[in-house]
């Protein structure tokens, strides 16, 4: 009986985080590699493809990916597990960032701030966003489907306007200019030397760690914490209630699931994730700009869910890797092509690249009039195309592909 992967003798056993020993070991190795990635260790530097992600150029992008993963996990709780589609995730991120800068930023002539330490402003960002989520939910809970999507879309536009008002400027900084964001140093209170220095290079225990490595490790720790939190929530009573509401809300209500209450919880928790992620997002850029939290950011999270696979915890993580990294890979590849001087790469570069009117797809000039686009523009087109292709060809996302591959080998040599 032991060692059969699909045999569960209790519910507890089935809903374990990692049911088999193989999964436990693989997962432990994976997390260890993630933590050791930024350091130039002999073992990891021999893993092909993985090593360059630990380069200092890529650490900032990896950190951004981790922040996106936190926000996507939050949206997954609301949309993937609860079935309430929200286009307003960027709004809640913006609320979190504004709350964080209000609590943690410095007070000045044009700005309000309290210069509080990170252990207040980071949870404060989440709580502020959750409160706004609860405030919005009386409208949102009554709406379904596309009506809800459009109303939450309206929130994004309301949030963008916040930076234009005279009182919003005190918190968010001048429009299009923004405001300096507090650093990530962990202080006990407002003392000079931080308890744990995250924002500048220095010594941690016995190791010399650069600022980007510190940033990456900080974000990684938080992301793992939030991933475990979200996984636990989705297999708790709340998670099961939300899944029941997603699958058939009237049936869930008949069975005694309090629809209003659980939807409200879903909004609050998802906004909490978004608020924390928004604060971290602004901390990455070291500047809060309200314009960052626009509709495009919301769509990015919808895309992360759809590409990764909605309703699973791994989905948002895979999706944010895909959505954040693929454009960067394309950019890096284009840069490499541009530098190519001989061989097939040079022929490809001549065919694909252009810096003016000659034939080519990707324009490398600074200004790109006419029918050719720059790499960044192509990346946005690629992003839109990926959404469409995934929805048409693989609605369950990359996680769905993985499940199909896994099931094929599980059942091999039988087809079903």
């Amino acid at each position, binding site marked *: 009986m032991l060692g059969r992967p699909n045999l569960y003798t209790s519910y507890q056993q089935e809903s374990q985080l990692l049911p088999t020993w193989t999964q436990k070991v693989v997962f432990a190795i994976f997390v260890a590699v993630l933590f050791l990635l930024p350091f130039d260790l002999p073992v990891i530097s021999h893993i092909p493809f993985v090593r360059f992600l630990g380069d200092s150029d890529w650490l900032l992008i990896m950190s951004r990916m981790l922040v996106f993963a936190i926000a996507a996990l939050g949206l997954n709780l609301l949309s993937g597990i609860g079935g309430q589609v929200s286009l307003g995730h960027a709004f809640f991120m913006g609320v979190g960032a504004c709350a964080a800068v209000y609590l943690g930023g410095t007070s000045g002539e044009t700005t309000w701030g309290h210069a509080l330490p990170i252990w207040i402003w980071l949870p404060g960002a989440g709580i502020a966003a959750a409160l706004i989520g609860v405030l919005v939910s009386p409208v949102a809970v009554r709406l379904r489907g*596309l009506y809800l999507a459009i109303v939450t879309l*309206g929130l994004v*536009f309301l949030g963008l306007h916040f930076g*234009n*008002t005279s009182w919003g400027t005190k918190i968010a900084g001048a429009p299009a200019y923004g405001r300096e964001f507090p650093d990530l140093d962990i202080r006990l209170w407002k003392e000079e030397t931080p308890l744990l220095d995250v924002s500048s290079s220095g010594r941690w225990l016995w190791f010399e760690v650069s600022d980007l490595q510190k940033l990456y490790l900080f974000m990684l720790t938080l992301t793992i914490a939030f991933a475990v939190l979200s996984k636990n929530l989705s297999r708790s009573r709340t998670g099961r209630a939300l899944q029941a509401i997603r699958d058939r809300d009237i049936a869930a209500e008949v069975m005694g699931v309090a629809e209003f209450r659980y939807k409200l919880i879903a909004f609050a928790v998802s906004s909490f994730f978004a608020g924390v992620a928004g604060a971290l997002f602004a901390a990455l850029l070291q500047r809060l700009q309200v314009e960052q939290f626009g*509709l495009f950011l919301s769509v990015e999270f919808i895309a992360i869910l*759809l590409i990764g696979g909605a309703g699973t915890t791994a989905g948002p993580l895979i999706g944010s890797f895909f959505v954040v990294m693929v454009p960067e890979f394309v950019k890096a590849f284009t840069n490499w092509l541009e530098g190519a001087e001989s061989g097939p790469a040079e022929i490809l570069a001549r065919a694909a690249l252009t810096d003016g009117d000659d034939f080519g797809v990707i324009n490398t000039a600074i200004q790109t009039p006419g029918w050719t686009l720059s790499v960044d523009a192509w990346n946005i087109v690629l992003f839109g195309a990926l959404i469409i292709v995934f929805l*048409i060809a693989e609605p369950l996302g990359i996680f769905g592909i993985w499940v199909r591959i896994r099931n094929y080998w599980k059942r091999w040599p039988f087809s079903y």
Partner: protein
Amino acid sequence: MASAAANFKSVDLRRGAPLGFLFGALASALVFGLVQLANDPDLFFVTFMKSMGLGSVYALIALGFVLIFKATQTVNFAQGALAATGALFVSFLVAERSVFVADSIQTERYGQIPFTNLSNPLNAIGGPDWLFWVLSVFIALAFAAAVGLVVERLAIRPMVGEPLFSVAVITLGLEIMFRVFNNDAVVIEFRSLQAPWGLEGFTVGDELINWSFIAAMITAAVAFVAVYFFYRSRLGIAMRAVAFDQEAAMAQGINVGRVFAIAWAAGAVLAAIGGIFATQPPVDQTLSVDQETANIAFRALPAVILGGLDSVTGALLGGLLVGVAEIYAGQYAAANTSWLGAGYPLIVPYIVMLVGLLVRPYGFFGTPEIRRV
């Protein structure tokens, strides 16, 4: 006594409070409007004409949303990008050699047919400027319809029977893609539409009423009458049948794919018309396509939601209501701009939408979704 207490108990606060709030807001707005009317009737009238002009643009865009929603049960988020694309087509066809001042004197035309090296054949024919412009607009609308058809065939048709939200997200992806191409075309220079009325108009008192307000109103009236009769035609009835139940409609011999295609083509044409007016006052003073033009659809979304996603009447009334709210707020609350923030009229529609939805979750004319257990 007991029954009165029971009655009091049965008042649902979640329903009653917003309704009271709505009526309070409407009543105070009415009183305020009457006071302003007595104060300065000229200004009030001009503001009214302006709000009707804006409301007509919103109603046109909303009508495109409703047409597509009635056939496919999805919101087409790409409507804004289609609007900008249609307006761009017009600008290609009527382009002039130097575009610096929007209403500059018409110089030598070299309008081109989009995606080709062919020049606009209407150039060679000659004739009065306004006729050239109107015919060019019709050609541009044909191009817009073609774009709608292609989009429907490539991205929407494969999704028949899939969850509705997936289709909506596909249109979001389309919006993102189209926007990149549109923005690339307008990033160096704004593309002027060379509308024959320019920035001119007639004056009432000291205030100017642009001809474009009147043009938008007439166009919207024509479009709504056309759609009204369309829904009573054979094809329109087929479209309503498809919206009601795709499978049953198919069983009756209705070609669902063709209905989808026609809805998308019509939606794209309406979007393009809306896009043309989105470059004219009162929406935009530049008379040209820029990166903001595509936002007209997002600005019109509150109108659709307020009226109800599946109601033609709702689109008209919702559009006009939102237009009135936006223009009047912009006119009479301008003294508080620093507190309300620059550009505050743009978010007034969203606030109106939120309040309206508190009262009626399916809009004022929308059909509530019937749910089975």
